[in-house]
């Protein structure tokens, strides 16, 4: 054991600096390569929120079983407090890599820490890292969840009777708009008459208004509800109470809707986290930017619930196969819901043009202002 450790350390020292830097993570098929690595992870909310934080915590837990030591802290605000928890993970627990999972952790906190601790790797879950401005031991990772929302839409299109799908969204920023538009395009693929009705609540976590939004959508005739808010628990439970079907977001909400759950859009952070741990164990340089979707196994759909019909399951499985084969979601010409052509050709699923989305497509009832 100790000889093995020694040789690995030598290996790290000798080869670490020379290792290649670009590209996506290696395949994750190697098992238990990552033993001995200590990984710190900081969450902005509770680990069991049925949403964003839970998706990360599930991945951290899975990594733990492959021998990685996990140091976690939850409910850490986007202030000086996050820098303090991360610093203690480095100094007291010996974390070799620290993951910050909330948008506001990045600057200045993680940027400063990366400069202060150049031997520790810092990675942040939003595409904010810029090679020209930020240290090389810092980086970003994220998943194209809109691909999984597209699959939700494919299943939802076959599950609606009224052809009206409801979407409860927090704020009209590009990642939210991209999920709404992708959900619509998925639904239109299986049901050309489907429309998506959006309600923006105005903030990431407003349980009462989210419940009101679901009630308003169901009253207006929507019979499948999905959402993009921090904790989808209230949305899914309220929709289940109203007897309509649901698609999830961020983590698995299947247990909340035993009757109406179809499927849900989930991140698969474990792919990225395991990639980090494996590379650290081997002493390889970590990539600074990791992003991907179905074709790189970074997003997934929740296993089908009782609300998914056989036809919906088949269509969704086919859509997943298409995405794995990199088939584009956005194929022009497509208009926005004001009549202007916004998608003029077929765009690759990772085309930077799609990251700038500031419109809702024709077929979405809603407005971003």
């Amino acid at each position, binding site marked *: 054991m100790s000889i093995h450790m020694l040789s690995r350390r030598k290996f790290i020292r000798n080869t670490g600096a020379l290792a290649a830097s670009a590209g996506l993570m290696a395949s994750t098929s190697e098992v238990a390569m990552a033993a001995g690595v200590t990984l710190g992870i900081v969450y902005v909310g509770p680990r069991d929120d*049925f949403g964003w934080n839970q998706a990360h915590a599930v991945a951290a837990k899975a990594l733990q079983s492959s021998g990685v030591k996990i140091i976690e802290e939850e*409910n850490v605000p986007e202030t000086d407090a996050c820098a303090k928890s991360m610093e203690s993970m480095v100094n007291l627990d010996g974390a070799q890599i620290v993951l910050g999972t909330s948008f506001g952790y990045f600057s200045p906190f993680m940027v400063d820490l990366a400069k202060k601790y150049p031997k520790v790797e810092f990675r942040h879950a939003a595409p904010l890292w810029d090679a020209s401005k930020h240290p090389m031991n810092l980086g970003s990772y994220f998943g194209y969840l809109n691909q999984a929302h597209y699959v939700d839409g494919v299943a939802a299109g076959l599950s609606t009777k009224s052809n009206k799908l409801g979407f409860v969204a927090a704020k009209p920023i590009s990642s939210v708009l991209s999920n709404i538009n992708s959900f619509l395009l998925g639904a239109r693929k299986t049901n050309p008459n489907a429309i998506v009705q959006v309600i*923006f609540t105005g903030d990431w976590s407003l349980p009462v208004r989210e419940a009101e939004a679901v009630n308003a959508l169901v009253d207006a005739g929507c019979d499948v509800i999905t959402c993009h808010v921090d*904790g989808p628990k209230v949305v899914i439970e309220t929709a289940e109470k109203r007897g309509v079907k649901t698609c999830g977001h961020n983590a698995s909400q299947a247990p909340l809707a035993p009757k109406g759950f179809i499927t849900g859009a989930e991140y698969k952070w474990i792919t990225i986290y395991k990639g980090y741990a494996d590379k650290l164990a081997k002493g390889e340089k970590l990539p600074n930017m990791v992003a991907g979707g179905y074709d790189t196994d970074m997003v997934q759909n929740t296993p089908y619930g009782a609300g998914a019909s056989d036809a919906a399951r088949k269509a969704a499985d086919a859509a997943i196969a298409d995405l794995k084969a990199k088939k584009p979601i956005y194929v022009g010409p497509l208009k926005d819901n004001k009549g202007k052509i916004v998608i003029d050709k077929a765009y690759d699923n990772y085309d930077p043009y799609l990251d700038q989305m500031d419109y809702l497509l024709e077929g979405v*009832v809603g407005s971003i202002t």
Partner: protein
Amino acid sequence: MSGGTPFIVLVAILGGALRVSTPFMFVALGECLTEKSGRVNLGLEGTLVLGAMSAYAVSYHTGSPWLGVLAAGCAGSALGAMHGFICKLPRVNDVAIGIAMMLFGTGIAFFFGKAYIQPTAPRLGSIMLGDWTGNPQLATALQINPLMIVGILVAIAMWWAFANTRWGLIVRMSGDSAPSAMAMGVSVDLVRFLATTAGGFLAGVGGAFLSLYYPGSWNQGLSSGQGLMAVALVIFARWNPLRCVAAAFLFGATGAIGPALQSVGITQGYYFFNAAPYILTLFIMIASAGSSKAGRDVPGELSIIK
């Protein structure tokens, strides 16, 4: 679907008023009682959150949501009693204690509530008032919770008791003029202690409504400031329990405008419509502050006025 667009919006506003108003009502009634006795308890946001957590936890463990409601009330009275006790001490500012109690209440609710985010507890049922209409939207909007009726009855009882009973007179006198109350041999501190405790009970029950009925689950963002708004509603209702109920309904109804309009395709300016309850409150307060009667409704002993 049946009915036109205005019908859908009206039904949504009615439903919103019936669904959302109850926690505001309970917190406002609790604060009304406390302030009538001459003390301000700004900690009711914390009481609401702790009530929500206790109700959910007790309902989960015992299987009885009504025991949960009782537990929420007891947790609320414990916080109220603490506030009342600390404020009896010399040279203590009740506003500052209230803010401390708010942080304390939410803090212990988050601490003990950790284990209850995931499990599902039995919820309170509802009374179907609208089944006779034969209209599914109207029937859903008219589903109400027994707690709402309890709240209205409490408001009527409080309004009657303030005007017609010896107890009501003592509470009002402690609030309007402590020297007169003391001259009558009334222990002002005890009256305020009891009024704050009872007010805490009501606010705790309001929390039980949040976690056990609507939206009906426990998580840390559940209240998002409703307890604070309800305290402000008391001023808006000018310390009258019946007006507290009306203010709570108005607030619930205007809060439903934003989602309801978006659901029928009126999607422009939703930030403005989401702000409707606050804008409306502001305008009514400005309008009512001008009336000559407004000044007379304020309990004379309130520390925010002195």
